[in-house]
Structure formats: structure tokens, C-alpha cells
């Protein structure tokens, strides 16, 4: 009994010491002070595509305004839309604009605010191949349909002369959950292949003919990194940050383009002036010599009527910050900035939030 009570005393005191240290310590970088009653907390959830830049933005915004905490969880574009419609989050985020049916399910009007542009790139893990491979839309479709199964298939070799492609099985990796990144990818494949369009279609979650499912961009990148012979699609930053090679894709003009800032900006450039009012647009397979064919806007989904005046105010201020200062940070994380015309129109749209 004595042994136990001694032990218990030691443990309880250790716990108290630990908790007080955690609560009261002050350290420079990542420790946000314990929120005061004045702290306003917002919750958002959705796309994993822009998660790197969103987590940087919300963290930086919190450093500037320590009484505002915006918690963003990357659970997938589909989940972002769903939770927004259910009202369990203050705002959503999605790579794919909401369709009319989903918008109809919402009691208040929902505004789309494009935040950044990004590229979805084909990333792979092939022994001995660290160069950039060239892919066409047709080749990618056939791989994802399960028609092309080996890396040294003549269809792939045709566009990659001089690369030593091994006779390795291609392990297709896709998303296991509803994903805007999947939407962008299947949107592109549907545009370049009628067979894909009719057999599988474009959606956040589809019935994939072949392949393994990874959770989030993170999961897909992780699987690609670990499985030899894997081919998956991820947002550019995930391939870059994890140093996995990614390939070029042939665009509508017949040029093999890399998914970098120039290509994405070129893809958006053509549409900047003709974007619809609500910003819902698909820019895959964009025309133009320099355009990258698998590019996309990604959106914050904000309801027009926000009851809490505090939250409404913060969202409006954040959006303004995001469109001005926030844009300065995006290129460092391999996202492309919004075209100027789009920014101007979005700043006007902010006033619609009441």
C-alpha cells in the first residue's frame, strides 16, 4: 500500500509539473499563448491540395493577430463541402467548385473564393529513373484504366527516348477518399479520353479501375515514395517537398509542359478575363503553348450569411489579407499567384458577405 501511494504521489506531482510547464512556458516560435476569452476561433476543413499554403497562412495570420485562431483540417475537398453543408464548420475548402445540386442543398448562398493556383502532377518511383518523364493524356488514361501495365511499354517509351525504362509493373496510386485533386485529375482524363469519360467519369470519388488508395495528398505521396514502380497524382508541392520525381504532361497545343509556376500561370492566364461571375471554372487542358494541362484553382467556400458578427468580420479581414499579403507567400510553396483581374473581382465579392 505504501509503495503504491508513494508511486502515486510521484506520478501526480510529475503530471502537475509537466502540465504547468506546458501551460505557462513562453517560447519564441510555435507556442501560441493559451487563448483568452477574447480569442475567436474559426474552424474550416476541406482540400488537401492547398493544405501547405493554408496551414502557413493561418499560422502566420495567428502570429499577426494573436486573438484569432483559424483551425483548418485537411480532410479532402468532398468532406469540406459536406461539412460546410452540414454546418459543422465555418468555411470549407475545395479544389472542385460546388455543383448546382450541392449549392442547392445550402440554405444560404455560398461564395467561391479562389485562393491559389496549383498543378496536379504525375509522380513516380522507378528504380534508376530520376529524369522527368513525358506523359500524354492518352498514356495516363491507359495506365489508370489498367491497359498499360509495365513501365517499358512502347506507348510510354515512344515519348521518352533515351530513358532506360525497366520492365517493372506500374503500381497505380489514387486517392481513397473524396478529393478535389482527384476531380482535377479525372476532369483532365475525361477531357482527353471519351472512354474514360464514359467508363469512369469525373468526380471527387470515382470507381477506380485499378490501383491502391492513399488518404490525402499526403497518403498518395507516401505510398508512391515507398512502393517501387508506383505512379500517382499529387499536388506539386507534395512532390517537391518529398523529393519525388514528377513528369511533364502534353498540353492541348502538343507541348510537353512541366507543372511549375510558369505553366500554371499560363493555364490560368487565358481564362482570367473570361471567368464566370461566381468563379466556378475548370482550367484543365487549357489552350496555349506554355499552359500546363492539369492545373486548377482552389477555392475557399464562404457562406454569405454569417450570424456571428465577430466571425464574419474576421473572415472578411482574412480574405482581404489573403488576397494582398497572403499572395506574397504562395510562390515559395510552389503555388501560382492569382491573376490580378481575379484578385480585383474577389475583393469586390467580399462585400457580399453579410
Amino acid at each position, binding site marked *: 500500500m505504501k509503495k503504491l501511494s508513494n508511486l502515486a504521489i510521484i506520478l501526480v506531482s510529475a503530471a502537475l509539473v509537466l502540465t504547468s510547464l506546458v501551460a505557462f512556458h513562453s517560447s519564441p516560435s510555435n507556442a501560441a499563448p493559451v487563448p483568452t476569452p477574447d480569442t475567436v476561433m474559426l474552424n474550416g476543413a476541406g482540400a488537401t491540395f492547398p493544405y501547405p499554403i493554408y496551414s502557413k497562412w493561418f499560422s502566420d495570420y495567428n502570429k499577426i493577430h494573436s486573438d484569432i485562431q483559424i483551425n483548418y483540417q485537411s480532410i479532402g475537398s468532398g468532406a469540406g463541402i459536406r461539412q460546410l453543408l452540414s454546418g459543422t464548420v465555418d468555411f470549407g475548402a475545395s479544389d472542385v467548385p460546388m455543383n448546382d445540386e450541392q449549392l442547392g442543398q445550402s440554405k444560404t448562398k455560398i461564395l467561391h473564393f479562389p485562393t491559389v493556383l496549383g498543378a496536379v502532377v504525375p509522380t513516380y518511383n522507378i528504380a534508376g529513373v530520376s529524369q522527368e518523364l513525358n506523359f500524354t493524356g492518352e498514356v495516363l488514361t491507359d495506365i489508370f484504366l489498367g491497359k498499360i501495365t509495365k513501365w517499358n511499354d512502347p506507348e510510354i517509351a515512344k515519348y521518352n527516348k533515351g530513358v532506360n525504362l525497366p520492365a517493372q509493373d506500374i503500381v497505380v496510386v489514387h486517392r*481513397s477518399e473524396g478529393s478535389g485533386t482527384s476531380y482535377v485529375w479525372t476532369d483532365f482524363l475525361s477531357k482527353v479520353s471519351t472512354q474514360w469519360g464514359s467508363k469512369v467519369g469525373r468526380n471527387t470519388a470515382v*470507381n477506380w479501375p485499378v490501383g491502391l488508395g492513399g488518404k490525402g495528398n499526403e497518403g498518395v505521396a507516401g505510398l508512391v515514395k515507398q512502393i517501387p514502380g508506383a505512379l500517382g497524382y499529387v499536388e506539386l508541392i507534395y512532390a517537391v517537398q518529398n523529393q519525388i520525381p514528377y513528369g511533364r504532361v502534353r498540353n492541348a497545343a502538343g507541348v510537353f509542359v512541366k507543372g511549375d509556376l510558369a505553366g500554371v500561370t499560363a493555364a490560368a492566364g487565358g481564362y482570367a478575363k473570361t471567368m464566370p461571375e461566381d468563379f466556378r471554372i475548370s482550367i484543365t487542358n487549357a489552350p496555349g503553348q506554355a499552359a500546363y494541362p492539369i492545373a486548377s484553382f482552389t477555392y475557399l467556400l464562404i457562406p454569405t450569411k454569417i450570424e456571428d458578427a465577430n466571425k464574419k468580420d474576421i473572415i472578411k479581414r482574412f480574405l482581404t489579407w489573403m488576397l494582398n499579403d497572403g499572395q506574397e507567400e504562395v510562390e515559395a510553396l510552389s503555388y501560382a499567384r492569382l491573376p490580378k483581374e481575379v484578385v480585383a473581382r474577389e475583393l469586390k465579392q467580399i462585400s457580399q458577405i453579410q
Partner: protein
Amino acid sequence: MASTPIPTGRAASNRRAHAFIQGLRSGDTFAHLFTLLCAASILLVTVALVYELYINSTTAQHKFGLGFLTGRTWDPVSGDFGALPFVYGTLVTSALALLVAVPLGVGAAIFLSELAPPRISNALTFVIELLAAVPSVIYGLLGIFITAPFLRQYGEPFLKRTLGFLPLFQGPMYGVGMLTAGFVLAIMVVPFVISLSREVLMAVPVDQREAALGLGATKWESTWQVVVPYARIGIMASIFLALARALGETMAVTMVIGNDPRISSSLFAPGYTIAAVIANEFAEATADLHLQALIELGLVLFALTIVINGLARIAIIFTTQKGSRQ
């Protein structure tokens, strides 16, 4: 003693009333009622759980009917949902887990209870029971970083070379897949099997063993033909416990199974379990039908749990009737 008739009449009812008031005053009635309410709340929670699962999947039930259980497609785009790939994945991975964990676990339990010196046996069991408490994400972590690569590089090629004539061990080897998931599950449930089996084996009376040995049996014969059968109910209970854990395990499985709703004959292929698909797709099923189909899957899993539970109890009743004393 002859049964006395229930007393009637004013004296008797007075006594009963007195006893009731006594009960109220001393608080016994309240205590009884209060604890009964708590016990009843368990029923309430379970009923509410089943109700919620049922009521939130009615559209899907109407649309698919019993065909849901045999449907092989899971297509959110066209709204066609079928449970078969997930039921298949759940059953295959659990069966695999048991196939590995039961011989290993019972064998180890036999060793620990019959052969090992008591101090070593106790110490090892202590550690094994601690590991039963390891959170499942950690098994998933180890699955991703160690088990899957190991199986991909060594385990699966080995199986392919030796047993590749079986359709079970053919096809491409990814590392992640049903074999890995079954293996990870096996590691997770082995501590339960060992700990429970050892306990019941040690509870077998010494005279049983001595009687067998006295008749000239070797120690193994005594163990295998007398002690183990005597303890078989407890061992079976441990197996069912392991099975229940394997069926419902979510996190570790979804990290290593490949998340592909496909029915393949090969164990190397990726698969999907009910728990894993719910975890992955629940938060985002935007179409109502999709969400309802997922909840209906939950109902199927729940039904599976009840069936297994029932089978366990029936098996235990049968083996009791057959003469084991436990």
C-alpha cells in the same frame, strides 16, 4: 418445508407496506432504482446506436435491398453501392489474422503455462499483456514503415517462390495489401490469445495432469490430450475475443491494406474492409446515398459482430455440454 401460501389479509399487506416504506427510508429502493437506471442506460445506448444506424440508411436499404450484400461495385459517381468487397476484405483479413495468431498464441500459451519456469512465465506474460494495451495507430505505423516493406522485399517473394502455384500467392506484390493487413492484425491480437489461454491452462487442476502422467503419458501427451481439451472453452473464448478485435480494427488496417474495393483471389492484392472505408469516406460523402450506403455498411458490420458473438456463445454452450468442466 411445505410451501407456505402467500399471506393475505390486512396484517400481511400492512407488513408489505411497512417493508416498502422501510426500504424508501433506508434508501435501498432508491439505490436499487438508481443503479438499475445506470444498467438500463447501457441498453439505451446500444439501442440508440442500432437505431441511428438503421434510420440513417433507410434510403440505401430501399434502393438496394438484400442485393446490397452481394453487390460488387462501389461507385459514388453512378450511385451504385455494394457491400461484398468490404465484407470479403473484413472476413479475409480477420481469418488470416486468426490463422496466424491462434497457433502462435496457443502454442506460446502452452509453453508459458506448462514448460516455462514460473518467474520467466510471469515476467513474459506481464510484458505480453502490456502490449495488448498498445494503441492501434502504433501498429499501423509499424505496419507502414516495417511490415509492408519487409513483406514486399522478402516475405511476399518468398511465398511466391514456394507457394506460387496457389492463386492466393500470385500477382503483383505491393507490400500493402490483404496479406500485410492480416499479418498486422495477427500481431495485434496475439497478446489476447496468449494471455487468456495461459490463464485458463494454468487453471486446469493439477490432478488432471498427474492422472495422465500416472497412466504413462508423456508430458506433451498429457498437455495436448488432457489439459488443452479441459481448457478449450477458455481458449475458444480468447479466439472469439481476438476475432472481435480483428473485425472492428480500423486504423492499422486502413494504413496497410491499400484501400481498393476489389475482390481478388490473391492475398498480395489490395483490399478494403468495412471499418476502413467508413473511416476514409464518411466525413465527405456528399451525395446522400453515398453516406447512407456507408452507414448501411456499418449496420452490416454490427450484424456481423452480433452473429460472431452469438456463434461464440453457442460454441461455448456446446462444448460445455460435451463434458468439459469449465
